[in-house]
């Protein structure tokens, strides 16, 4: 039995459709209830629906064998897992965004508001730029408008939210998409099952 951790929400729905299309369906998942664990013994899969930011934690601790998680979460944490496949779903970019009229002042440390503290730190270390991090948990776009920060580091999908808040992409840090990850021990002991699933996914993604 393969235990698969999926992120709850839009990305999770897309990923489930992909898995179902290659023979790992579990129709119960569509039932309108509050269950978080769904099992299809015939297909040998058990889906666990968890908070997107927790998928990698479940995998690293072996509570699930494989899972799907955004690259942003993997980069932000430091998880001892295997990253097996880029599913090319949920594509977006990790960006530095700033007010439309922003001009960078190199005389002083840059004030950066973000919930991706490690990604922001690592990015500016690579540029040898001194920064002051302001950790926020949501509505990051408001920080430069209120003068709380000079720029923000956040995920940009269509850019519409930025636009509506008079912000623009200032620099692109990295592309983000959903990744198939596996627990290292599960990969050793359920290798045939995981490899079979991976091959099927690769074929489907190549179509």
């Amino acid at each position, binding site marked *: 039995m393969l235990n698969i951790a999926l992120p709850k929400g839009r990305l999770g729905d897309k990923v489930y459709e992909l898995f179902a299309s290659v023979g790992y369906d579990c129709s119960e998942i569509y039932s309108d209830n509050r269950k978080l664990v769904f099992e299809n013994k015939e297909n040998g899969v058990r889906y666990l629906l968890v908070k997107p930011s927790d998928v990698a934690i479940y995998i690293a601790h*072996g509570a699930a064998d494989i899972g799907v998680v955004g690259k942003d979460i993997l980069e932000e944490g430091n998880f001892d897992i295997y*990253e097996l496949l880029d599913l090319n779903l949920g594509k977006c970019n990790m960006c530095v965004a700033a007010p439309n009229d922003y001009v960078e002042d190199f005389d002083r440390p840059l004030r950066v508001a973000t919930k991706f503290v490690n990604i922001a730190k690592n990015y500016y270390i690579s540029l040898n730029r001194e920064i002051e991090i302001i950790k926020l948990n949501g509505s990051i776009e408001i920080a430069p408008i209120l003068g709380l920060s000079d720029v923000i580091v956040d995920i940009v999908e269509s850019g519409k939210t930025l636009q509506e808040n008079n912000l623009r992409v200032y620099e692109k840090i990295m592309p983000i998409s959903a990744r198939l990850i596996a627990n290292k021990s599960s990969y050793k002991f359920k290798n045939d099952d995981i490899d079979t699933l991976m091959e099927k996914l690769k074929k489907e993604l190549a179509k």
Partner: protein
Amino acid sequence: MNEFLSTLSKEDRLNYELSMLYKQWGYKEYRMAKFEEYSFYSDNRDFLSSSGILAFNNSDGRLMALKPDITLSIVKNAKLTDALTKLYYNESVFRMTESSNDFKEIRQTGVEVLGKIDSYLVSEVLMLAAKSLRTIDEKYVLCVSHMSFIPSLLAEMKISENAKKEIISCIRGKNSHDLKAICDRCGVDEEKTELLIRLSGINGRLSSTLAELSALASNDEMKTACKELGFLDEALAGTDIAEKLYIDLSVLNNTEYYNGIIFQGYVEKAPKAVLSGGRYDKLAAKLRESTQAIGFAVYLDNLNLYYRKEREYDSDILILFDSDSSSVSLLSTVESFVSKGFSVRVEHNAPEGYKAKTVYSFENGALREVK
């Protein structure tokens, strides 16, 4: 003896059984102090698997560290002779945990061999590593790698050290998609990129994968490594551990310290590697002149979590008594049960959730079974 072992926790039982195993193979126990000068560990910080070192000042003002690693200390301090130095240890190390960024005491056991290391010794240490894993769980896998494959290929590439670090991180994570993107970005030629991806993706039993590995060996270092792995395969063929040995070149250690065969062990119920080791001539040469070395460590700290012992009863007998009972008579009753091999707990009231095979109440100098 088995009855005695069954009363121990998984960690304690393993400590005992692994010590016996290493003794049987002629290894001597090595005991050491819990701390050592801080500067020794800070000079060799790259060798440590965790960045934090727990330091304190001793009475004469010297900065000391609670040992974050055992191998370093053994290589520096063990008495070397013309013969091989074969040691095992059972010690605590103090490391920063990734999950809580806090220090934790971790129990570790393992073996180290110092001296002139040949192919026999490599197979003996691999054999002991496999037997150690089997002592933890019959379902185990020992992943073998060699430091001459990926590092020698990376050395041929004219790319920055940062790019190499990124590539190594991808290889450790079996992440071929980002690996390809980094190679493309750095202008690595397609042939080398493809070879890196194929090497890091190799995953199969040692015996059945050697031919594929030999076909991919593109330089002299890789060819020599294939020969070493061939010796190992030959030495262990026919033993019951042969089918548990897998080639996995995504196992990569620090190139400044390690060379030759390296390995990691997994057991079914633990989510991460519980054993790690390999040949570390480079570290040995740094600390002791013309010494070679190989060894491994078994991490016992979380095994109690993954191998929980489900006990049916807390004790064989629970005796409930009131303060008016005769102490002399009660004590002799308990003593009589214990001398017959029963475990007994005596209480005024039954502890919450306590399970005993038989519960007695002790009244007027006599036992009455409580249903």
